[in-house]
């Protein structure tokens, strides 16, 4: 598991780990809309500004998805920090998203 980003140290620019993610969605289809909302909520709560998110609409850019080996949408790929991880579906299961992003503080029992 990747360590939790370091706490902000007053007086010093925070050198937090930036989580880079790519979310593949299909236009405004229901699960895609939910996935965006769920992911944004998780990011707001757990990552503040420490993340980069690229959203790819596979209806408009199917080639990108195929080249990246994505088979279904919605699908979230964590690209950095290492290790990479994927979550499939509308991201309503917050704990599995947090685990994939390496953000679980208390291991799930």
């Amino acid at each position, binding site marked *: 598991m990747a360590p939790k980003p370091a706490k902000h140290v007053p007086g010093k620019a925070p050198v937090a780990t930036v989580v880079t993610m790519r979310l593949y969605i299909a236009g405004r*289809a229901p*699960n895609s809309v939910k996935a965006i909302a769920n992911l944004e909520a998780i990011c707001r709560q757990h990552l503040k500004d420490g993340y980069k998110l690229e959203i790819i609409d596979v*209806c408009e850019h*199917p*080639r990108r998805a*195929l080249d990246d080996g994505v088979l279904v*949408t919605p699908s979230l790929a964590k690209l950095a920090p290492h290790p990479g991880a*994927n979550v*499939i*579906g509308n991201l309503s299961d917050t704990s599995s998203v947090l685990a994939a992003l390496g953000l679980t503080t208390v291991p799930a029992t």
Partner: protein
Amino acid sequence: MMGAPGLTTGHLAPDTPEEAFRAWLRRLVTDTAELEAFDAGQIDAVMDRDSGSALLLPEAQSALHDANRIVLSALDALPGEVCVLDTRGVVVMANKAWRSSGAAHQRAGLDVRAGENIFAACEDVPESERADATKVAVALHQVLTRMRPSQSCHYVCHASPTRPRYTLTMTATASAGSVNALVTREWKTALKSVKEQPGTRSRSAELSAPAPGIKNHLLAALPAKDFARLASGFEAVQLTYGEILYEPGAPMHDVYFPSDCLVSLLTLVEGHRALEVGLVGREGMIGARLALGAATSSVRALVQGTGTALRMNSARFLTEFRRSPALQRTLFQFTDTLMIQISQTAACNRFHLVEARLARWLLMTAERMASNQFHLTHEFLADMLGVRREGVTVAASALQQRKLISYRRGNITIIDSPGLEAASCSCYRAVMERARPG
């Protein structure tokens, strides 16, 4: 496509086409996590490597359809003329005001409809409007590439007799990482009828030539005074894909002169699918049978290419037909051409292979729509050609493999017209040659 090991799609036969499609899509999914999400109803689309596209699940399709309908009805409620373009400049939606003013102006200038590409339309304008169209294309490119948030361009419809003018304002809107554009159109001149205005000698001289801006070939071929007399009885209408204008045996209340729409004539035989026997676009009219003394239609007339037409009620049409020898000549000639097309189609349906017939049909459609790009489903093509859907799939794939057409999610583009003509049956050329006057 390989099925997932240890998983079945169920032994129950699917009850609906949606279920069958879902079962088929499920077979494309091979990984466990993806299958779990699929079965939990958390998937919107499955990528298909063969076609290189995203295939939407039925629920996602209908949700997108509903969402689009809500957005379109909201846009329709606006008094201004608005259309929405995607990143490539294709019109995703056009509101009611946009559609009806485009129809009322006979699609003068740079009028685009849902599914059409505005960049392609910019290249397709008459020479006199080229400068304005180029400015629009450049400005739109800047908006879609984030160079400018918004741009406005003036456009004068030089090719239209009344030279209407408007301002197009293009504004960038971002969604899911790509930039779309919202386009508004504001006319600077009041809508004028195509009817002759009281005018000067030079105006009368103009009217002795075939009316410019009239896209229907039959009407454009009429002497100006005959057309001017007809003009007041016309109403510009938008005909939408799937709309039925006539049913066999039912009275023909109106006649239609297509400007840029396409209408299929279908014969219905009990117990069989409808079969297309004729195709009419801007080169002809719908309802020519009235001129032969019949009051009812012998075929189903089905709109298969959305676009505009000029409509006139049948009584008025008959009155005009009786008093205009030029209209009579034009219509008899068209009826003769249509009969050639119908008889050739009957023979073609009986003797020629699906692939050659599909090639012929695509060429005829392209010619009548004046476009090499159109949207057609396999289901629809199967009806047009009187074959099963699978037959169309095989034929379309064969033409695609030969790089004559590209077919993606119902969007057909003719890549190689001469090649397609070579692949089509002799009927295409035969109709063209026999229909030629003289």
